[in-house]
């Protein structure tokens, strides 16, 4: 562990969790009917619903994942912010009001309102369930990441705690308590992110992030004519030499302490630079900089190597305005820590080497998504970028836990107004993510093992108080979003599948009971997946959920609303094709290949984001099948 647990953090954390549970108890007494369980009785005020939308949407992925991605890859992480917000334009202008008019509790209701077809009920409930589970995984992973520094508990405990609390919230009071939890959390998140950004700007840029920041060792080397080298300081002994691609890593030992260094050779000037490293020994033991985690030899990283203001090099800038801050970063030079893994004898070694990066490269796309020819971008790199931007744009308005929030307000007008409140709050927050991410990048707070912790750790830099509050909010963020997702999935199982598809006779009370049991089941699945997917960037995972949602649900929604020839079979098949193709591509993608312990470059499909293939495929399916089943449609389309 590289951070200490604070009592204040534990107290604030318990307070927020207590508040959330208290609310659930309060609303549990009021939740008696199916309408109140699934849609809060359609009685939520639009302003509350709008902030609750923001609460739903600003999940762990936005707060933890995007900030983390910006902290490690600069502007490329901000692309997620832009895409996530742009998705709301689709939701507001095309989907919000008509969908609200068609549906009752779930998005399957709306899709099916014209046809009353079994195939749609089944397909829509399956897709709701799958998208929700995909979205649940990153929330649970984020929860696990959070409790490590906050409460000093292992990752799996965090997942288990969130899972249990959420199952409790949902199973007691359904959508009403979920809405108010989201409202409180959405509001707190925006307010405290603003405060954190204020601190970042006030702090400005500084070459030394803090008194206890690690001083990196730099050792000169002499390169011989045959390209071999020797270390100038003869007290160091070279223990190992690893070449990974065009990088050379050297293991040096001095007085019994061994460490990894990266070789830099710019002709005249050659030197070795210290790189923090994690070793997994043949017995499975994990060592941090050569020692068990408890010895705390691992340290937080991220600093500036050069600050230039008005053409002059300075040590620090003092407080800066929002635009000055970005400008100052653009002119400066930042040390990022890039990961490389290799095997050294029987050990598996992961080093995080220093990579000096120009500010102007950080403030434009390209560090994560290689796009320009000079950086060696391939066709697939560019397709990946296009695919991501497409899925983010089209995914929002197809997310089941967002869609159900159109039914919690009393009217279409309220649905529209709450969407606008949501866009404003979310848009403002996304602008802040850039500052929080960059702040984490330069202030020596990053834990290279978990990009997700960047924002909370940045808060810690400014004091334990704000760290505790931010972490507790982040935890509540996970709680709220997971609750919303579980309500959506329990709706898919109990309302769409058992009630409408299987046509099991149930009283209103039994419907609520079925929903609660479904919620418990989904919650348990989410806990298991959250533990399995530890260590992946949560924003990347959510990007995949968006791709599945955009492929499976959005063509169905848009064509139903805007194309008269759409048929029930067209909708059902497009949902199925969307799910199968998007998940199929993900399963065979480079990121998943790495997850299976194989080499990313050997993956059968060189595409990480499936949207660019699966969305058009789903659209084509819908059009072709609809045109083929026009006759069928004439007899089915009785309700319209």
């Amino acid at each position, binding site marked *: 562990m590289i951070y200490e647990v604070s009592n204040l953090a534990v107290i604030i954390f318990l307070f927020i969790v207590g508040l959330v549970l208290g609310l659930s108890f309060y609303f549990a007494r009021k939740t008696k009917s199916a309408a109140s369980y699934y849609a809060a*009785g*359609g*009685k*939520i*005020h639009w*302003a*509350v619903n709008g902030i609750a939308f923001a609460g739903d949407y600003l999940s762990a992925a936005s707060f933890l994942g995007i900030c983390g991605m910006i902290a490690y890859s600069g*502007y490329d992480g*901000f*692309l997620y*912010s*832009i895409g996530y*917000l*742009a998705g*709301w*334009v*689709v939701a*507001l*202008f*095309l989907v919000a*009001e*008509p969908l609200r*008019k068609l549906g009752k509790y779930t998005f399957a209701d709306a899709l099916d309102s014209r046809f009353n077809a079994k195939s749609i009920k089944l397909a829509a409930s399956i897709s709701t369930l799958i998208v929700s589970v995909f979205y649940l995984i990153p929330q649970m992973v984020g929860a696990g990441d959070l409790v490590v520094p906050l409460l000093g508990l292992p990752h799996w405990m965090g997942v288990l705690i969130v899972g249990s609390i959420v199952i409790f919230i949902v199973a007691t009071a359904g959508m009403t308590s979920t809405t*108010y939890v989201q409202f409180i959390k959405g509001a707190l998140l925006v307010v405290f992110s603003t405060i954190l950004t204020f601190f970042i700007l006030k702090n400005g840029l500084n070459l030394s992030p803090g008194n206890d920041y690690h001083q990196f060792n730099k050792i000169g080397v002499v390169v011989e004519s045959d390209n071999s080298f020797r270390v100038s300081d003869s007290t160091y002994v070279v223990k190992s030499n690893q070449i990974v691609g065009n990088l050379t890593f050297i293991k040096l030992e001095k007085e019994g302490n061994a460490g990894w260094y990266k070789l830099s050779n710019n002709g005249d000037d050659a030197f070795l630079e210290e790189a923090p490293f994690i070793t997994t020994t043949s017995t499975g033991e994990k060592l941090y900089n050569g020692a068990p985690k408890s010895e705390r030899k691992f340290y937080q990283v991220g600093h500036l190597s050069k600050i230039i203001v008005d053409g002059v090099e300075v040590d620090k800038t003092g407080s800066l305005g929002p*635009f000055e801050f*970005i*400008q100052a970063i*653009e002119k400066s030079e930042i040390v990022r820590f890039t990961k490389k893994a290799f095997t050294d004898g029987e050990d598996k070694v992961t080093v995080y080497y220093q990579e000096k990066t120009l500010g*102007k*490269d950080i*403030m*434009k*796309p*390209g560090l994560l*998504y290689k*796009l*320009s020819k000079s950086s060696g*971008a391939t066709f697939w790199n*560019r397709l990946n*970028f*296009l695919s991501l*931007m*497409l899925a983010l*744009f089209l995914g929002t308005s197809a997310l089941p836990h967002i869609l159900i929030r159109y039914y919690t*307000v*009393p*009217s*279409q*007008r*309220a649905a*529209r*107004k709450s*969407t*606008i409140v949501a*866009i*404003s709050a979310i*848009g403002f927050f*996304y*602008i802040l993510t850039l500052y929080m991410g960059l702040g984490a990048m330069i202030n020596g707070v990053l834990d290279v093992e978990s990009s997700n912790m960047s924002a909370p750790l940045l808060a810690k830099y400014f004091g334990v108080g704000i760290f505790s509050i931010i972490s507790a909010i982040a935890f509540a963020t996970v709680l709220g979003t997971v609750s919303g997702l579980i309500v959506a999935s329990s709706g898919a199982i109990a309302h769409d599948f058992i009630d409408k598809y299987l046509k099991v006779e149930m009283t209103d009370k039994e419907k609520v009971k079925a929903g609660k049991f479904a919620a418990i089941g989904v919650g348990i699945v989410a806990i298991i997946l959250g533990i399995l997917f530890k260590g992946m960037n949560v924003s990347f995972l959510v990007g995949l959920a968006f791709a599945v949602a955009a492929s499976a649900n959005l063509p169905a929604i848009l064509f139903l609303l*805007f194309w008269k020839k759409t048929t029930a079979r067209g909708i059902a098949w497009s949902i199925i094709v969307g799910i199968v193709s998007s998940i199929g591509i993900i399963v065979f993608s480079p990121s998943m290949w790495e997850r299976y312990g194989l080499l990313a470059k050997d993956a059968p499909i060189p595409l990480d984001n499936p949207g660019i293939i699966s969305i058009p495929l789903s659209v084509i399916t819908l059009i072709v099948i609809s045109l083929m089943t026009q006759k069928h449609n004439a007899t089915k389309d009785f309700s319209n």
Partner: protein
Amino acid sequence: MLHESTVMKETDNAAARKAKLGVKLFFIYTIIYAGFVLIGLFKPELMGLELMAGQNIAIIYGFGLIVLAIVMGFIYNYACTRLENKLNKN
């Protein structure tokens, strides 16, 4: 807590015109968003160019897309509310 009364059956004479407006605004935003993605795809070096006030195109375009979504949202709501008030009088 804030609760509104539920309007169960809604007849909305403004629905068609609101939908038309929504589609129009959607296309305007989509074109601008596509412009951003296309620059990234085909002229990524353009993103680093300083446009004004010391900010590059990536920052101005990116922030611009976020602010534009909010502004268009308000315009849409204003127009829709007017249409509803005008057409749903009875």
